[in-house]
């Protein structure tokens, strides 16, 4: 779809032959590329919402949308059209300019991430040398949109919701970034295309499963998906920071959120599942779209099933889970991986070529290290859970109750 990089020379040449100046030709091709890259998520989001509703319906033994178009495929289009005709209300006392700016930022920041996603070996918007940090930086602008949406609405609930959401986003950004250190360490590059190329021998999900899981969980929270969607739990509280928004501005927040969730799956597929790698992709690069789409869809489907099956966490559990479990595990993971990488280098096991057999010894050693981390964590969970149950049983015995249902997410320090 995005032809800009693979055939940029053809396009520029065609345009210059037709009498356009080289600078303008470059600009036009870039603009064309931008529009192409940006249209992909815009079209995808329409189907995403349909898929999401269908999956949620199947899990809950319902049918889901099935009236508009074949299998209800056009339901989202109908919803969008309806939303276009909804009255757009701006509350009194709202900071008009900022109030209108927030949904635009919300949507734009998500599209901007797509600029660095490698779709195939040849198709990528911009293969920046710091692609990984680019996406983290753009995602961190996302906190600004929530802040200004909550603040400009002149509504206590919006402001409170915004602050809680920001606290959540900030907290989960730490394990997210920490888990991204590990692919960078193994691959020695921060360019997205470079990361995918480096996974030619072995996907990073096998070399760093703990980092992959951390990345997935942190992304669930970053995108506000279940079980971390407590701040805009539509079935319990009204909404979060976007309570005052109506019509298409609200639609922009929602579409941005759906797209962000999908983008997160896409990033997980690119960084940990080998991106466009698949059989025959080196001969026919366009196949990369298919493989990447397939991997993304698997990750996305998993998050959808999680969404409709897992209960929401409480906010104190959310914070405790992040700061007392995810962050320490991520830090330990970085240290263990760093040590094992030096060890494999010293033993001469670091892969020189990018094929499966060369990467195998290092992978096994890293996998063992990850396994050790997992075992230690599971042991900790078990001990803490047992201690809490016993403490609860002791107090209950003293008080005379016998309820001992405790959640093990609580603090190990207690």
């Amino acid at each position, binding site marked *: 779809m995005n032809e800009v990089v693979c055939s940029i020379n053809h396009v520029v040449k065609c345009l210059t032959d037709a009498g356009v100046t080289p600078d303008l030709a470059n*600009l036009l091709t870039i603009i064309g590329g931008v529009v192409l890259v940006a249209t992909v998520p815009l079209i995808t989001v329409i189907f995403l919402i349909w898929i999401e509703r269908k999956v949620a319906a199947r899990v809950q033994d319902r049918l889901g949308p099935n009236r508009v178009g074949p299998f209800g495929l056009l339901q989202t289009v109908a919803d969008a059209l309806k939303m276009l005709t909804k009255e757009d209300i701006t509350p009194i006392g709202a900071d008009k300019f900022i109030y209108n700016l927030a949904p635009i930022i919300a949507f734009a920041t998500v599209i901007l991430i797509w600029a660095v996603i490698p779709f195939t070996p040849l198709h990528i918007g911009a293969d920046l*040398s*710091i692609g990984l*940090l680019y996406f983290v930086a753009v995602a*961190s*602008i996302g906190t600004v949109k929530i*802040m200004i949406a909550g*603040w400009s609405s002149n509504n206590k609930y919006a402001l409170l919701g915004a602050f809680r959401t920001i606290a959540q986003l900030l907290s989960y950004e730490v394990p997210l970034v920490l888990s991204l250190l590990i692919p960078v360490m193994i691959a020695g590059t*921060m360019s997205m295309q470079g990361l995918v190329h480096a996974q030619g021998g072995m996907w990073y999900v096998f070399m760093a499963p703990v980092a992959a899981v951390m990345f997935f969980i942190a992304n669930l929270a970053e995108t506000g998906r279940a079980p971390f969607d407590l701040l805009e739990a539509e079935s319990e509280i009204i909404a979060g920071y976007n309570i005052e928004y109506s019509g298409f501005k609200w639609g922009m927040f929602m579409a941005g959120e759906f797209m962000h969730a999908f983008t997160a799956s896409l990033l997980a597929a690119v960084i940990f599942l080998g991106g466009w790698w698949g059989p025959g992709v080196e001969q026919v690069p366009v196949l990369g779209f298919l493989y990447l789409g397939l991997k993304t869809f698997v990750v996305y489907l998993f998050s959808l099933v999680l969404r409709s099956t897992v209960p929401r966490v409480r906010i104190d559990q959310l914070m405790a889970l992040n700061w007392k479990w995810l962050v320490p595990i991520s830090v330990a993971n970085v240290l263990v991986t760093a040590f094992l990488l030096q060890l494999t280098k010293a033993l001469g096991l670091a892969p020189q070529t990018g094929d499966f057999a060369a990467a195998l010894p290092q992978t096994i050693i890293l996998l063992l290290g990850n396994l050790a981390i997992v075992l230690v964590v599971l042991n900790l969970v078990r001990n803490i859970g047992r201690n809490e149950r016993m403490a609860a049983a002791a107090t209950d015995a003293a008080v005379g109750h016998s309820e001992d249902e405790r959640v093990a997410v609580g603090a190990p320090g207690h």
Partner: protein
Amino acid sequence: MLEFNAQTIAFIVFALFSLGGALGVVTTRNLIHATLYLILSLFGAAGFFVLLSAPFLAAVQVLVYIGAIAILIVFAVMLTRSMTRISDLYNRQWLLSAIVAGILFVVLLAGVIVPVWGVNGTQIDRPVSDVVAGTVDLGKALVDQNQYVLPFEVASLLLTAAMIGAIVIARDDQE
């Protein structure tokens, strides 16, 4: 003297962002607006870093300044309710301060444009080389025992100390 090309346009846009944002910070009464202006200004500076082929610093600028420091400032504004209480924007020395800042600017500009204090290298038109050390070299320099490994560790210690100090100061111990 200036070719009119994409880089020049980008430079002008970023200069407008960063200078306009800076002006907004010091002239806006509403502190949330001032923070947004600060974000604009910092974004312009990030653009400069890209133009100066230091993309890593540009990403850090967005990540640290916009994603963290600006948010922290907003938290502080909300915690102190400081946007509604102040009647006067400036103190009584504002005129004097404006003159001081103006003179400082003129002096700096003169020092930058004309070699008042002798030839000082600010007059060069183009970089001495097109080859630039990348982020990998930064990483190596940061943990090289002959270069920055000590500042690197001290930076970590400084941040830890800052965090401990800030927690001690900010927490309400009466409760």
